[in-house]
């Protein structure tokens, strides 16, 4: 919340777009601003009406350099926009830096995304420390623009809930030391371990023991959110990510061309397999294990074909880890299986579970 808790006392707010950027059509600007207001009106009793002339609560403009308020813009990059807290005159107004290039897609800088953030200030929110929140001060474009639960909690503290019987919920940013933390997928990558959860990765490496949490799109802008499985085929310096019946491949930060591909023609899965829960490449055998519900499939990376005799029950090869796996990776000769908040360290040589730990034990909590 902004210091002093400034807020609008009326709920039917008006806005006016004073001028337009030449980077986009007027219709695109109108659309971006309208959608940005809709994000906030969906979770509060506030309504926003556009007026074409005269007085309005929130004035929106594209300006550059010193533009007559207490904060000049700084040319391309750096400061993208700013907005004023609720109040009369300049209160609530939003200024976009015309020295930026404004877009309606993933290129820098997406107007809808920046407008949605600035309108949060216009309504009385300050910056959030939650990297997944729209009110986080730095620009990250992760593909989808939505209010996080942190944004919703903030704005509803000021204005209360919307009258909509279906209260929208926002995504929550994973907390690395939350004992309830679970994972979508885990993979090694060039000696590090990368844990995937919703839009985020959590990365731990030998050199930087502090876990790093950020958007998956920071590394791989074209990967979708909510990946379901991932594994590293280290011989080819390749990491493969799975979602539904599609998969993508990367080398380091480079997305490999020609993806996504489907799992049927590439690996030989039958059409009855709709998605993969977890995958791991076993260096000693050159085989990749795919976990699908309560079964495993084994793929020979060098022969590039599924091994005969599969699928089998998970317990046939990995006794004790249960009949469903969320994520798995191999490190130092051991397999680490994750199911819910539990983690099993498994010795593939003796086929025995060595330890049972919390899923987030890798984060030095």
């Amino acid at each position, binding site marked *: 919340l*902004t*210091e*002093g808790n400034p807020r609008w006392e009326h709920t039917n707010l008006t806005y006016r777009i004073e001028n337009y950027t030449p980077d986009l059509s007027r219709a695109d600007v109108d659309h971006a601003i309208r959608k940005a207001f809709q994000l906030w009106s969906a979770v509060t009793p506030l309504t926003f009406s556009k007026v074409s002339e005269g007085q309005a609560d929130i004035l929106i403009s594209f300006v550059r350099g010193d533009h007559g308020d207490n*904060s000049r*813009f700084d040319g391309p*990059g*750096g*400061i*993208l*926009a*700013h*907005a*004023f*807290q609720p109040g009369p005159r300049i209160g609530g107004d939003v200024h976009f830096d015309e020295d930026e290039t404004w877009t309606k897609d993933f290129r*820098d*800088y997406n107007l809808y995304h*920046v407008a949605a*953030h*600035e309108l949060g*200030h216009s309504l009385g929110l*300050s*910056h959030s*420390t939650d*990297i997944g929140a729209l009110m986080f*001060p*730095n*620009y990250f474009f992760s593909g989808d623009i939505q209010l996080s639960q942190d944004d919703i909690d903030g704005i509803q503290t000021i204005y209360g809930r919307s009258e909509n019987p279906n209260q929208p919920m926002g995504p929550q940013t994973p907390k690395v030391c939350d004992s309830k933390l679970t994972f979508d997928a885990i993979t090694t990558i060039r000696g590090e371990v990368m844990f995937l959860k919703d839009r985020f990765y959590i990365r731990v490496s030998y050199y930087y023991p*502090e876990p790093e*949490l950020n958007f998956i799109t920071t590394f791989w802008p074209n990967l979708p959110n909510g990946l379901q499985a991932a594994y590293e085929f280290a011989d080819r310096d390749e990491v493969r990510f799975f979602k539904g019946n599609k998969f993508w491949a990367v080398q380091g930060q480079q997305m490999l061309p020609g993806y996504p591909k489907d799992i049927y023609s590439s690996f030989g899965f039958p059409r009855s397999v709709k998605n993969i829960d977890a995958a791991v490449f076993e260096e000693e055998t050159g085989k990749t294990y795919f976990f699908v519900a309560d079964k495993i499939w084994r793929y020979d990376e060098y022969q590039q074909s599924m091994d005969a005799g599969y699928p089998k029950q998970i317990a046939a090869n990995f006794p004790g880890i249960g009949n469903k796996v969320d994520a798995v990776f191999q490190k130092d000769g051991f397999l680490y299986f994750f199911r819910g908040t539990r983690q099993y360290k498994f010795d593939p040589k003796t086929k025995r579970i060595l330890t049972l730990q919390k899923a987030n034990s890798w984060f030095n909590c």
Partner: protein
Amino acid sequence: FPAAPLKMQEDAEQTVQQYLEKYYDLKSDGEQIGRNRKSSLMVDKLKQMQEFFGLKVTEKPDAETLAVMKQARCGVPDMAPFV
């Protein structure tokens, strides 16, 4: 690691100073008394900034901190009222 060229260090200092002035209310006018006072204020602000962004709190403008400072962002300060 080889020592960073002096010019780079000056650039980094300037980046940190300007960033903390803009977003963390670090005063650049004559209120501070002597170099040490100014330094300790800057360290405090740098610590606030590192805590805010979830960075490792080194109280120094390390590479990770500088990288975050160079990212494009909203012009509204993180820690001060903007009236």
